[in-house]
């Protein structure tokens, strides 16, 4: 079976710092997604990509950049970390009309 791997699992940053989160999938899925989840809340879509080098903004793209240089990987950059920010960033991938599958998440804390 396939797997979605997110690195790092935990990320501690400083205010104003640029931080990069990585996601790899070996399902050979076309579409990849980045979601943000705040404590006790649902998920919000930041960016998605339907193929290599494609990028589409989601509902929460401001303050983030993304990169899809290979079909198997999708990176998310927090362009300027906000003080006291705490959230979980979830990567997902999907193929055609199948339900997206999720990774375990990267937990971000900003000091």
């Amino acid at each position: 079976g396939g797997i979605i791997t997110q690195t790092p699992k935990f990320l501690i940053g400083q205010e104003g710092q640029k931080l990069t989160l990585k996601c790899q999938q070996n399902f050979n899925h076309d579409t990849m997604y980045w979601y943000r989840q705040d404590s006790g809340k649902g998920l919000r879509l930041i960016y998605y990509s339907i193929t290599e080098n494609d990028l589409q903004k989601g509902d929460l793209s401001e303050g983030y950049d993304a990169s899809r240089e290979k079909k198997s990987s999708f990176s998310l950059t927090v362009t300027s970390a906000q003080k006291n920010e705490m959230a979980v960033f979830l990567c997902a991938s999907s193929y055609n009309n199948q339900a997206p599958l999720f990774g375990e998440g990267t937990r971000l804390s900003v000091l």
Partner: protein
Amino acid sequence: LAKTTQPPSMEAYEGQEVNVSCSHTNIATSEYIYWYRQVPHQGPQFIIQGYKDYVVNEVASLFISADRKLSTLSLPWVSLRDAAVYYCIVTALSGSFNKLTFGAGTRLAVCP
């Protein structure tokens, strides 16, 4: 896009059958119903999806009302491992991109 309404929390004992309801009164003909669950420190896990009537897999059953405005996820014989937040999502299949809009979900507590 259809909006879903779920109870915020439920409680059950191990071994019980649990039915989690989801109302989607404005569901469009193009939209499917997905259920995910999420345990602490993990990403959401896909459980089941359906369009109408009744769907069953090795984990759960999904009942969809005739007018498709209500669906019920049924979990037989719950265990402590089934304690999680359960999300009902309604979305149209659109080829490569399947946008999932997650609400607050239903938090299921399972007591021994």
